[in-house]
């Protein structure tokens, strides 16, 4: 065993022992601040965690969920800044926490929040209407090359994950779509089913109902490998039967959205350790696994170094797209 390995082991042992040494436990009700409106993907994420933490008595104080979805979630992150050092507030978001400050001039920076954990990865797929002529994602891309700027591509919000992905497809292939922003994934799903847009890049959960009904169908998923096996959703097709976009010749290996939990900056290390341990227990519970299966998200529990590295890569990739599109705010 090398010295570094021993050092690592010692460090791991210390981190594991930390919760036992430092006796942080919430002394007041804990606020779960959700960076989206009620009923959205982030909201369900927070409420599922709330349910597990309360039912299994992992956190013994009451937990209150608060929706602050204004300004694409910026409202919640500003709230974290205003409550610097408060150990009774957890903020729930996606990658918007660290991407928003790049595209909009906001009064917070990523330094105002302390990452606690990422608990899941949500996949992105290209969807088209069931009776559309596109059988393969490259059909769609080629159609957009032949008639630049005419094929309407729906997505939720502006300069958010959906538009970033569409821009990434355009930059990778040279195609030119007409991006139309709507208010949320559910709305975009219906717009596609009604034939008002030609395609969208919804998460599995947002389009599952319409796919089940045979109104729309998926073309490919932006992941390094296919999604997990599942019950058939539509006909005899399940999530695993959807090819990856690289299989179809679209060279975007991976585009996933993490579901993340944050603390306001400036809390004590034992506070962080306490919530990391609590969320770890959530990620191991059966309820959590059921939630992931139901919403077709991939399990991925990241904390500490791993999480920091993930955020760094994800941020760098997105900023590259922002710069190419000229979206960066100053």
């Amino acid at each position, binding site marked *: 065993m090398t010295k570094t390995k021993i050092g690592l082991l010692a460090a791991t042992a210390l981190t594991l022992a930390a919760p036992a040494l430092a006796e942080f436990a919430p002394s007041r009700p804990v606020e779960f601040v959700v960076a989206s409106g009620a009923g959205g993907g982030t909201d369900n994420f927070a409420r599922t965690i709330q349910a597990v933490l309360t039912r299994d008595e992992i956190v013994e104080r009451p937990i209150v969920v608060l929706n602050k979805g204004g300004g*694409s979630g*910026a409202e919640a992150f500003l709230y974290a800044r205003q409550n610097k050092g408060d150990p009774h507030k957890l903020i729930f978001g996606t990658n918007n926490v660290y991407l928003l400050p790049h595209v909009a001039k906001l009064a917070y920076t990523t330094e105002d929040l302390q990452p606690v954990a990422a608990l899941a990865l949500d996949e992105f797929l290209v969807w088209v209407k069931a009776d559309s002529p596109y059988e393969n994602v490259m059909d769609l891309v080629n159609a957009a090359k032949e008639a630049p700027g005419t094929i*309407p591509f729906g997505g939720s919000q502006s300069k958010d994950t959906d538009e970033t992905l569409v821009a990434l497809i355009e930059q990778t292939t040279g195609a030119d779509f007409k991006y139309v922003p709507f208010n949320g994934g559910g709305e975009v799903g219906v717009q596609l089913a009604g034939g008002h847009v030609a395609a969208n890049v919804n998460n599995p959960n947002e389009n599952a109902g319409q796919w*089940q009904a045979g109104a729309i169908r998926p073309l490919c998923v932006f992941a390094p490998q296919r999604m997990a096996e599942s019950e058939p959703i539509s006909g005899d097709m399940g999530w695993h039967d959807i090819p990856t976009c690289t299989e179809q010749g679209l060279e975007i290996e991976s585009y996933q959205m993490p579901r993340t939990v944050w603390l306001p900056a400036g809390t004590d290390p034992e506070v962080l350790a306490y919530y990391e341990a609590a969320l770890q227990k959530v990620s191991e519970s059966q309820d959590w696994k059921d939630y992931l299966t139901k919403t077709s998200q991939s399990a991925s529990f990241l904390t500490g170094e791993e999480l920091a590295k993930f955020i760094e890569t994800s941020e760098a990739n997105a900023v590259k797209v922002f710069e190419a599109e000229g979206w960066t705010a100053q």
Partner: protein
Amino acid sequence: MANFDLLMHGFGIAITPMHLMLMVGGVLMGLIVGVLPGLGAPNGVSLLIPLTFALDPTSAIILLSSMYWGALFGGSTTSILFNIPGEPSSVATTFDGYPMARSGQSTRALTLAFMSAGFGALLGVIVITLLAGWASQFALKFGAPEYFAVYFLAFAAFIGMGSAAPMKTMVSLAAGLLLASVGMDSVTGSIRLTFGFEDLLGGISFLVVVIGLFGIGELLSTVQEGLRFRGVASKIDLRDVLKTIAELPRYWATYIRSGLIGIWMGITPGGPTAASFMSYGIARSSSRKGAAFGTGRPEGIVAPETADHSAGSCAMLPMLALGVPSSATAAVMMGGLMIWGLTPGPMLFATQPDFVWGLIASMYVSNLIGVVLVLATVPMFAALLRIPFTIIGPMIVAICFVGAYTVSNATFDLWVVLVFGLVGYLFSRLDYPLAPLVLAMVLGHKAENAFHQSMVLSDGSLSIFFANPLVSSIMVLGIALLVLPKLVAFGSRFRRQVPVE
């Protein structure tokens, strides 16, 4: 009648002692939540969701929806008694409900509101029962231009026959549109009109503004008039309730028209708030005594309440069948649905018949329970008006501020209430209508988004609003409502002098 068999099956599921208990409990909790402004149905329902994890999905949705109905009933109560709308959708009820209560007919006003609400809800549920399959197909036809046309129609219906001075209406409307555009624009992603205030990033909450305009504004007017509460309660008697019920058939035309508006707005989905405003506007413009609206006309209560509740119940349909919630409460319930492991969408009706039809059947029963419960408590609510102003005045101030705070737990909102209290007071002193401002705040942002999306789709050509029969017919109807009343007025003035009423 396959739907009828399914409904009977649903009744079998909904009518069990356990479910009836959940309905009574849900409606009662909803009444409380609805009476307190700010703590509206969406908040109440989201507070209840964690409690439903112990229940099976059918019981859970019955509890949540019963609470929603209760909140809708409760919301009208404070609108009528104190001019403070408990729910955004009961704002239109204040226009005639409050004047009627003030003139000593509070029991009549409340009974009218509750009976209309019950009738509207019933109409909505019947439509859901009959159209469960077809309506979701219809809603799919609505793209961005169609949505804009619907909002345009709502504006047109409300403004076309405005009784206030046209310039004052314009000022009020423009102020509302301006307020609605504060915050982040979802189409361009740019931040507008926040002047560097972080608190304005999420926009100005419509409900907070309404609490200030109506609650505090009214209170200030009362203070000026000598600290006497203007609503002197009449004798409260169950006979008044019965007498009011007996006069209901007189308003059959308003009932049917408002019910249809509500159903349409619930399904399309414009939402209950838009429905109540639109219905009030149309009732006013189709009334032969147009000027008397706003002074306590019974139709002015019947129209918004019927439309509000029929839209509220119909809103369940797009939520279940398409996953598109047309009201904030429906959005929260949809979140619950997903947590219970159900996927809203066209297949829900096929894969979960027990859940869907259990819910639909429960809507009949719990609305009936709601009407009975709320009528039984009319004398109690109306008696609130007998409490002297020195006691009730401070209480209203407290309720307003607590209500505004609960909307998003922001202290900034307390200042907003105060500022808009003053604005409301000035508006009523200077005879500026408040309704166009409120309407613009509710629909301004949605209309703007739909317009912007349409423009992106059409590359900036307005012809998209007349591109297919559906969107053109809605637009033409809207333009007609906007222009015709003025033309008719002009024409009749041309022919002969109209006697002023």
